[in-house]
Structure formats: C-alpha cells, structure tokens
C-alpha cells in the first residue's frame, strides 16, 4: 500500500521556484516549516500582547490601555497563543516529522495538507484585522461566554470575526487531524507495526483523535452563538428559552481536550529527546502508549471542572472532581517513566536536554496545581483568580512552550542541516526558565490572596506582587530575542550538521535520523524496511 502512494509522490513534477514554490508546495516538509515559522511569528505577536498586559498591570494608574482595550488584548493574547502559536507549532513539527518517522514519502493527502495550512492565513487576518473594526477586536475572553458575547452586549463585529476565525481554524485542524490519522494508519513503512511507532507519532495519533472529536463540538457551539447574534435565535438566551450554561458545557467539552491537544505532542517530543540525550532507551514504552491513550479518553470526561462555581449540582461536581483526579495518574506515569529513562544514563546537557529536564520541573508543578484545582473546596477559593492563571501557564508555558524549545533545538539540524548555537542556547534556556518561574510562580500567591483574573485593574493591596511579576517578563523577552537571533544566525551558516548529530540511532533506530539533513524531496529513495 505504501508503494502506490510513493509513486504518486515521485511522479509529481516540481513546477515552481522561490516564493511560488512555497505557495504551491504540497511537500509535507515545506508545509511543516511554514507552520513552524507561522507559529514563531504569532508567538511574537501574541507575546507582545502579553507584554502590554503586564505593562498595564504594572501600574494600572498609568492607564497604559483602556479597560476596553485591555479586554481585547487579553482575549486576543489567549486566542493567538492557543490557536495560532501552540497548535500550529505542533502541527508543524507533526507535519515535518510524522511521515519521516514512519517511513513515508509524504502525508496521505498532500493537497489537503496545504489547504489546511493556507486556511490559517485568512483566519489570522480576520483576528488581527478585527482590532481595526468599529468597536475593536473580540473582548469576551477566549471562552467567549454568552450572554456577554451575544449581540446585546458585544455588538461590534470584532466578536463575529473572532467566531468565524475560530471556526475556520477548527476546520483547518480537523483536516490536519484526519490527514495525520490516515497517514499513520495507512502509510507506515513495512515492518513499522503499531508497537514500534515512535512516541511522537503515537502522541499525534491520540491528539488527532481528540481534535476530530472535540473541535466539531466547538464549531457547533460557535455556530449557535453566531446564530444567536445574527438570526435572533435563542440557544443561549434565557429570555428565549435558551441557557448560557449549555454553551459552557459545549465549550469545555472542547476546551479540556484542547489543553491536552496542546501538550500531548510535546510529551511525544520529550520522549525522543530524553533517551537520545541520556543515551539510553526510553523506559516503559508500553506504559507510555497506554498513558497517552488514557489521557485521550479521560480527557473527555473532566470538562465540568471548569464550571465548579457555575451552579452545577453537587453530584456533578463529585463526578468531575474524581475524573479530573484520575487524569493526573497517567500524567504521573509519564513523568516517572521519563525520570526512569534518565536513570543510569550518561547525560549530555545540550540545550534540548536542558529544556526537557526544565520541562519536567515546571510541568510537575503545573500538573499538581491542576490536581489541587480538582479539589472542589479549593477550587471555590481560587476559581477565576490568578491561581488558575498560574496553573495553566505552568502547563502551557512551562509545559508546551518548553517542549517546543526542546524540540526546536533537537530537530533544527534535521530540518535545516545546521546546528543552533549551544552557547546561545544555554542563555536562552536559563533566561527563559528563570523568567518563566519568576513570572508565574508568584501568581499562585496572588490567586490565593484573592486577586481575580481577567481584570484591567486591581485593589491596591495586590500591587507589589504584580510589579514583581511584570519585572520577570523582561527575562522571557530576552530569551525570545536571543532564540530568534540564534535561529537567524544559524540559517546563515553552512550545513554541517550531518545525518544524525545527536547519535540518536546508536540507541535505537529512528528513521528521521537515518536520512540526510535536510531530507531529500520525498524523504526516502527507497521505502525503508523496519524489523
């Protein structure tokens, strides 16, 4: 079966050069690179919004931004980081690496793949453009709860553009996810059976399933919202017999799986980097695969832990609290297996490894603060405060973003044929790691002290901690600058990386390290056999 796809790929003529080549390409590697560059650009833009937010909170008396603009910045920061940065970055690495790792020449549907990528552009244009429409961008948060997001309370077209953009991004994700599933199911090289799949591929299989199941629910919820806004239906409007809580259930039915969609591929990356750098086979492969699947399944049964104070019944809270507890068990299994993978190894502290170990440090904290939040009485004390902000930034910045740094340092040589500077890398890591903890650690305290999130202003008592937090942002900014500089610098250097710069294949065969760096068009002259 792999052969007919392969020939289809090989006979495809290469027609264009330069920019046109990138625009018309259906090559999974080029599309992957475009996704990653897109993510990096949006990371900068979304990060700048975070900078403005922190600047405003440094001293709200300065009125750096108006409260109306603050809500727009906060909404767009989250939307950009989630949908345009993290999801696209993982989609990029997935696109680049999955076919290579399973010994395929391309994704199953190369044109669909290109289409899914190019859909991002109009979506991004709608999101950024919405800042310039009357009333400004969407300002109701990335969760966009009605009735606030209905026409009565958010009349501007910013909200409409936001809804349409997120629906578009959802369509793109679903197409991407189906492509990943078919690719992995159908195009594995001979001998690459399921229990030999590299963990990054496994994590993408589960992620893709989650996308396929969760995103349509979000799209449905958003279409109903759009219809409430434009067609005067009343799905979410009590006066017309609707119910705002319906939206919350639908949104979080998507929203919780979504948070795992944003971390599972990162887990997969770590499962490659740690063994390579510790020069030892991954510990507990089967347990890892089972853990990813349990997360994927239980992840659909915990959504209402985001609604513990929404007035849902006590018995519902008991159920969702227990289910959320369960999900930390497979997460724990992954942490222990990574530690056991390092155990007895001979560690090379490359930048990739520093980020991987740093990731374990921060993710443990983020996972355990999540467990605390699943304890309903505690959640009542800190729900919608800065404690929650601390929790999810520990898992998303300390988790997902750190895995992306690690993955970039690890696979950059494969993708470009060039090494990133390890010296600069060390700076990037320490600046980022210190900055990240500096910024987000004190937020736990702010939340416990009772500072609400999503606020442009706060009671004067919270000022000292807020100023301290804003100062830490500078470290993360410096890390971002150095990182970007390091990439640009490396791209001007000769391609000296070699096929397998980390000697990953000394430990275990990984097909992506068995081809040249960068790999040739269509990856493998001959489809490899795995035994």
């Amino acid at each position: 079966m792999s052969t007919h796809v392969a020939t289809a790929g090989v006979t495809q003529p290469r027609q264009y050069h330069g920019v046109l080549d990138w625009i018309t390409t259906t090559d999974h590697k080029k599309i992957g690179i475009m996704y990653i560059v897109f993510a990096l650009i949006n990371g900068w833009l979304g990060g700048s919004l975070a900078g403005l937010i922190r600047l405003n909170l440094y001293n709200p008396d300065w009125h750096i931004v108006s409260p109306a603009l603050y809500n727009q910045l906060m909404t767009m920061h989250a939307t950009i980081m989630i949908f345009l940065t993290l999801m696209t970055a993982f989609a990029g690495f997935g696109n680049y690496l999955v076919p290579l790792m399973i010994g395929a020449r391309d994704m199953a549907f190369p044109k669909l793949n290109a289409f899914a990528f190019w859909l991002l552009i109009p979506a991004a244009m709608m999101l950024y453009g919405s800042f310039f429409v009357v009333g400004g961008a969407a300002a109701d948060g990335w969760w966009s709860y009605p009735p606030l997001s209905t026409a009565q309370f958010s009349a501007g077209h910013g909200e409409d553009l936001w809804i349409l953009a997120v629906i578009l991004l959802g369509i793109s994700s679903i197409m991407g996810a189906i492509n990943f599933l078919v690719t992995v199911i159908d195009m594995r090289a001979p001998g690459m059976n399921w229990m030999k799949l590299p963990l990054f591929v496994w994590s993408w299989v589960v992620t893709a399933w989650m996308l396929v199941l969760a995103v349509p629910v979000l799209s449905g919820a958003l279409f109903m919202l759009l219809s409430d806004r434009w067609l005067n239906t009343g799905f979410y409007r009590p006066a017309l017999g609707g119910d705002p809580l319906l939206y919350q259930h639908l949104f979080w039915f998507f929203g919780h799986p979504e948070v795992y969609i944003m971390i599972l591929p990162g887990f997969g990356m770590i499962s490659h980097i740690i063994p390579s750098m510790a020069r030892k086979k991954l510990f507990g492969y089967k347990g890892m695969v089972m853990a990813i699947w349990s997360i994927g399944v239980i992840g659909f049964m915990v959504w209402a832990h985001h609604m513990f104070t929404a007035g849902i019944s006590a018995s519902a809270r008991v159920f969702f609290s227990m289910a959320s507890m369960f999900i930390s068990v497979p997460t724990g299994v992954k942490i222990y297996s990574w530690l056991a993978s390092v155990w007895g190894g001979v560690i090379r502290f490359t930048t990739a490894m520093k980020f991987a170990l740093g990731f374990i440090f921060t993710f443990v904290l983020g996972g355990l603060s999540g467990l605390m939040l699943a304890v309903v009485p505690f959640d009542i004390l800190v729900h919608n405060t800065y404690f929650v902000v601390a929790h999810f930034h520990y898992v998303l910045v300390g988790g997902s973003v750190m895995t992306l740094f690690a993955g970039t340092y690890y696979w950059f040589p494969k993708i470009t044929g060039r090494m990133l500077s390890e010296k600069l890398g060390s700076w990037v890591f320490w600046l980022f790691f210190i900055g990240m903890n500096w910024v987000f650690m004190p937020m736990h305290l702010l939340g416990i002290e009772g500072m609400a999130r999503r606020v442009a202003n706060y009671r004067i008592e919270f000022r000292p901690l807020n100023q301290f937090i804003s100062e830490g942002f500078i470290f993360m900014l410096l890390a971002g600058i150095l990182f970007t500089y390091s990439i640009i610098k490396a791209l001007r250097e000769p391609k000296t990386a070699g096929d397998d710069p980390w000697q990953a294949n000394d430990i275990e065969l990984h097909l992506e390290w068995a081809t040249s760096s960068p790999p040739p068009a269509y990856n493998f002259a001959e489809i490899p056999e795995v035994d």
Partner: protein
Amino acid sequence: MSLALLSSYAQQAGTSMAQAMAQAAAKGSAAPVRNAFSQPGGIVAIRAAAASLRAFVWVIPFILIAYILLAYVIIKFRDKGDGRKPATFHENNPLEFLWTIIPLIVVITVALHSYPTLTFMEFGGNNPALTIDVVGHQFFWEYKYPQYGIDISNDTLVVPANAVVDLDLTSVDVIHGFYVPGLGIQMDALPGRITNLWFKAKPGYYKGQCTQLCGVNHAQMLIDVQVVPNDQFQAWLAKHRTQSASLPAAPPAALPVAPTAARKARGKA
C-alpha cells in the same frame, strides 16, 4: 462601617450618597483583602481552607519525590567523561504497576476526603437567619432583603455575625461571579437561573470582587461585605428600612422564578 452611619455622614456633610459611599470604600480599603487561609472569616472559609490543606498535604510528597529524583538523576548521571556505559534496562513491570496504582489510590483518597466539605458548603446552611437576593448588574451588585423590604445597590453588603446567611444569586444581564475569598464563597450569578450559597461569618470587613468577565468595567465590580454584631445589624435594618421606603422602587430584576420558590424547592425556606 454601617450604612446607617454612612447615610448620617451624608446628611451631616450635605454630600451625596455616592460620595459618602466613595468615602466608605476608601475607609474599607484600609483593611487588607482577607483570604480563607490567612484570615478565614467563618466556618465555611475555615472548612474550605482545611480541606485544601488536607489535599495539599497529599500533594507535597509527589512534588518532593519528583524533584528529588530529578535532582538526583541530574547530578548522578551526568556525563563525567569517564567512559561510563549507559545502563540498558527499559522496563520493569512491577515498578510501573506500583507507580500507577499508588498515585491512583492517593488521588481517590484526596477526592473522597474533599467531599464532606463539598457537601457542607453546598447543603450545610440550614435554617438561614437571613436570606438575601443578590442580583448582578453590569457593573454593580444589587442586594435585596426580601424579609425586610430593603433593596440596595452599589453598596456594602451588611449582614449579621454568627448567623447563617443565605444568598440567592442571579443576574439581569451577563454572567457575574460573586467571590469573597475571606468568607470562602464563590458562585456565579447567571441570567435565567438562581444559584445559591451560604456562609456564617465573624464580624469584620471582607472584600471581594466579580470573577466572571462581564464587560468593560468588570474589574471595577467590587464587593464589600460588612459583618456586624446582631444589635448593630438591627439598628442598620431599622435605619435603612425607612430610608429605603422613601426611595423610588428599584426596577424589578428579570427573575424567571421567584427566589423564594427556588428556595422552597431546595427545602431551605
């Protein structure tokens, strides 16, 4: 500061009620924001904080184990350039079974441990001495004391100390969140629904705020609660009833169900 005092200030100074309120808010802001851990304001906050700490005690070992192991492997298994060969083991079923089953038992314990407190917070407020209807508005809170015909808005919530106070929450526009950390309470106020919470507090001044993004001035939607001994509360009531009677009636909130009916349905009336 009680409202009785407040309005007398206003009369004396010939200032508007709004200005007097601003003064009161300024006075109140001298008191720190209390939270359930440092200065719990009553049994609900105490129980909630205790349940949180109990859970946290279970969590600490997991933080410690992970961090100690992490530090250990980093120090012990560095490449010291001595040509040491890496180990080759890569599975250990009993170990993997243990690190699945032990955390599983622990998290089930943590969850079960929290349920009595959850039940207490949900159902513990029997025979409330006072029931208040809290109505969220963009961007202020309206407090109605149906037993006393009092209806105040954008003002300090005044309640008697050491008595079960029952709050029925709803909203006339968007979703708001009623959050007073020192009292250990948080509950959303949704349009078209009535949600409920209760507390029993020690005298004091408690600060809170709206916790559901509700629009432009969400951050300004603060909550101030003054818990006073019963005699002061009665004085406040007496004073305020006459005040409130002479004021024009507040516009009726769009309540789909009469709050009292909802309370009866829950058997709390």
